[in-house]
Every structure is written in C-alpha cells, then in structure tokens.
C-alpha cells in the first residue's frame, strides 16, 4: 500500500497529462488545469523541504564541530539575516510583516533585502562564475592538444568560431572579394553553427528525446520506482 498507491497516483497523473494532449476538451482540460495549478503549489513545498534540509545539514555540521564549522555558521547567519529582512520588510515591491520599512529604507537607501541582494548576493554570484574564465584559459593551454584527425577537426572549428565571433575576426578577412565572402570568418562561423553544428546537436536532441520518452513511459507504467526510495 505504501509503495503501490503512490505508483497508481503516478500512473493516473501521467496518463491524464498524455490523454489531455489528445483530448483537450472537458473533463480532461479542467482536470489538467487543476493538476497543473496544484503542481505549482506542491513544488513550492518541495523547495521548502530542500531549504529545511540544507538548514538541518549545516546545523548538524556546526553541532558536531566538523572541520571548518565556523564557515557553515557564517552561511547559516547570512541565511537567517536575508530571510528575516525579506520576511519583515519585504522586497522591492512586496510588503513584509512590518510593512515596507520606509524609515529603514531612508537610512540604507533601499530595503535591507534588496541592499543585501545588490551588494552581497550579486557580486558573489557574478564573481563565482567569472572564475571559469581563468580555468578555461588554463585548460586551453594545457589540455587542448591535437592528437588525431577528430581532435584536429574540433580544433579547426574552435579556431574559426573563436575568431569569427570577435570584431578582430571580421577585420582579418574583410578584404575578401564578394565571390569569396563565404570564407569571411564571421560568415564561415555562422555557416558552421547553422549547418554542421545544428546537424550534430539535432542528432543529440533526437537521441536524447527517445531516451526521455522511454524513461518517462517507464515511470508512468511503474517500471521505474527509484524515486520512491527504499522499503520503509
């Protein structure tokens, strides 16, 4: 019962979604609209579950005084500060429990939540991903070595695209006459993206779609049950 009933629910919801695609009239249209609205609400609780789990995991590390526990404490403190400022005084447009906090806004210049977003969250988020530029430069220097015909093909395409997607690349071949415009780097780069790249990506898309259709069918029919977890 504890495992079979959820499987029946999964089958019924999956079946309803598929049927409503082919019979978009009542009662299926009403049922699918209702299901989709409920999905939004349940997803919200799923995210809440994830956040509580994260909170619990960090708290456990702090309690057990694991190596580097003070960093997790910093994480929890920043979590609590952001959460409290957001709930008490709201965000840019949303009103919080204590209203819009106009006095605080005049002191800080914006709501505390938005202040933290602009001066803490945004720089952290943007800088975290900008580190990758350095690593890709290092990878280009150490790992991008020509060894075979296939890697040659990869390298030549990469060079054409890297040059073609810059203003310098367009300058390099701007002298080409009209009948040789195909070899103008930006045009060549666009040709590669439109035809051979699209062909390969399309092949990957079609193959992945077949896999997804197969695995979705397995889930709906109850053959795939790993999402239910262990026997409890």
């Amino acid at each position, binding site marked *: 019962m504890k495992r079979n009933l959820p499987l029946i629910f999964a089958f019924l919801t999956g079946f309803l979604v598929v049927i409503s695609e082919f019979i978009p009239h009542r009662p299926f*249209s009403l049922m*699918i*609209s209702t299901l*989709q*609205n409920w*999905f*939004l609400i349940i*997803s*919200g609780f799923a*995210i809440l579950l994830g956040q509580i789990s994260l909170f619990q995991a960090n708290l456990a590390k702090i309690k057990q005084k694991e190596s580097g526990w003070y960093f997790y404490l910093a994480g929890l403190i920043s979590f609590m500060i952001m959460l409290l400022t957001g709930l008490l005084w709201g*965000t*840019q*447009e*949303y*009103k919080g429990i204590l209203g819009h906090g106009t006095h605080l806004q005049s002191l800080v210049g914006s709501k505390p939540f*938005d202040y933290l*977003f602009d001066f803490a*969250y*945004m720089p952290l*988020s*943007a800088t*975290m*991903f900008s580190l990758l*530029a*350095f690593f*890709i*430069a*290092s990878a*280009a*220097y*150490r*790992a*991008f*070595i*020509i060894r075979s015909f296939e890697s040659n093909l990869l*390298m030549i395409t*990469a*060079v054409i695209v*890297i*040059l073609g*997607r*810059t*203003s*310098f*690349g*367009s*300058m390099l071949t701007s002298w080409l006459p009209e009948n040789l415009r195909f070899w103008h780097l*930006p045009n060549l780069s*666009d040709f590669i*993206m*439109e035809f051979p*790249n*699209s062909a390969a*990506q*399309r092949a*990957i*898309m079609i193959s992945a779609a077949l896999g997804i259709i197969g695995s979705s069918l397995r889930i709906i029919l109850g053959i795939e049950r790993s999402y239910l977890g262990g026997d409890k």
Partner: protein
Amino acid sequence: MSSNTHSQTERHIVFLVLLVAVTLPLLFPIGWKTEVSGYARMAWQLIDSTPDSSVVVFSFDYDPSTMTELQPMAEAMLYHAFSRNQKVLAMALWPQGVQMADQAYAKVIKSFPDKKYGVDFVNMGYKIAGIVTIQSMGKNMPEVFPTDERGTKYADIPMLKNVKTLKDIAYANSLSSGTPGIKEWVMAAHDAYGTPVTGGTTAVSAPGLLPYVNSQRQLNGLLGGLKAASEYENLIGQIGSATVKMDAQSVAHLLILVFIAIGNVKAFLVRKRSKA
C-alpha cells in the same frame, strides 16, 4: 614536487596574462566594429514586425551570475519593444529573474518617460515549475498570476484586460541561462499553443538551442552571448553595455588562441624529445 610547483607557476602566469589582456582594452578602448549575424536579425525582425499595442511576454530566466551576457540583451530588446509601442508582461521562471526584470525596466524607462506601469509594462513575478507554468499559462493566465509583483489583481491591470491565455500574446521572449528557459518556452508555448518564441541565452547554451531555429520556426532567431547582445544594440542604433565590452572580448579570444598554439607547440616538442 618541483614539476608541481612549475605547473602551478605556469597556471598563475596564464591567469595573470589573461587578467592583463582583458583589463587593458577596458581602460583603452580600441573601437572595433561588430557585424550582425542572421540569428540576431531574425530576433530583431520578430520584435520589429509585431503590431503596435500587442502584449508580449519577456521571461527573465537567469540570475546575476550570467547578467553580463543577458542583461544587455534584455535592455536592448526591451528598448526595441517599447520603441514599437508593445506592452511588455515581464515574468521569471528563476527567482532572481524578478530583480533582473526590475533593473532592466528601471534602466530602459529613462528613455521612455511616458510609459506607465500597468499600462505599458507589468512585472508578474516569479513562478516555480518551469514548463508546467508555461503550459498553465496556455490555458489560464489569471490562474497562474493571481496578482502582479505589487499585489494588484490580474483583472485590475489595464494592459491585461484582453489577455487570458498565451494565445493572446504576440510573442514570448525568453532570456535564459539554463533550465527552465528557452527550451521550455519552445516546447510549451510554441509547439503546444503556437505562440512565436524568440530569445537570448548565454554563449554556452546557444549551440544546443540552434536546432530550434529551423523550417518549423520553433524559435525565431536566437541571441547567443555578449557578441549577439552587441549585434542587437547595433541593430537598434545604440551603443550599449555589450558593445563597449567587445574589444576586451576580442583580445581575450586572441589570447586563448595563442595559449592553444603554445600548448600544442610544447606538446609537439615533448613528443619529439621522447621519440629521440
């Protein structure tokens, strides 16, 4: 140990050279020009040919980590939509997208002081569940968005009086850096309800989305990366934040090619030495 130290030193030199190569063009701009590609032109064409007073959706499906590439696109496309007198419904499938939408609007509205919130632009906020949200919008938008970001009821928003489903939307423009994003808009908005879709994405995601720009017109053009943002700025006759960064982008690309060349020469010499 010493080869490790040598390798670490090499890495740090590579990092430093890259830093200098990207900083110098920012300090001393070169002024290289950008050519416009077919994909950017297609996206521009969709927005340009959409009739006056049409309601359009701008979905801000990204976070600050990719705003360098996507925010200039968002601002340029929003500017274009406003200049064509289109009414923009902003929403977000990523939570941070709400703030990105507000920032883009705050910047662009300075050029259009007569545009009013609720009449020409509205921010409906963040909705979870990606493709399910878009599918629900296809059936009943007021149900998905009971209120806008400011708490105004859907029925009380002037520009949305005649907009009940995605079929009442002229086009959907998704600025996305991952999932949910353009792919979900193509699948649910275009392929299910026939709403034209265009969009902008990070350069990383662009190659994988290009197959949707096809004879079936699943995607009407695609802006991929900072260069595409710069191309769009060129098309609308603006020198925006993307265009000023292209010099640094070009120099960095050249540097990467130099690194690849040096790496290959080094590997070739090592192979030759080991054979000898």
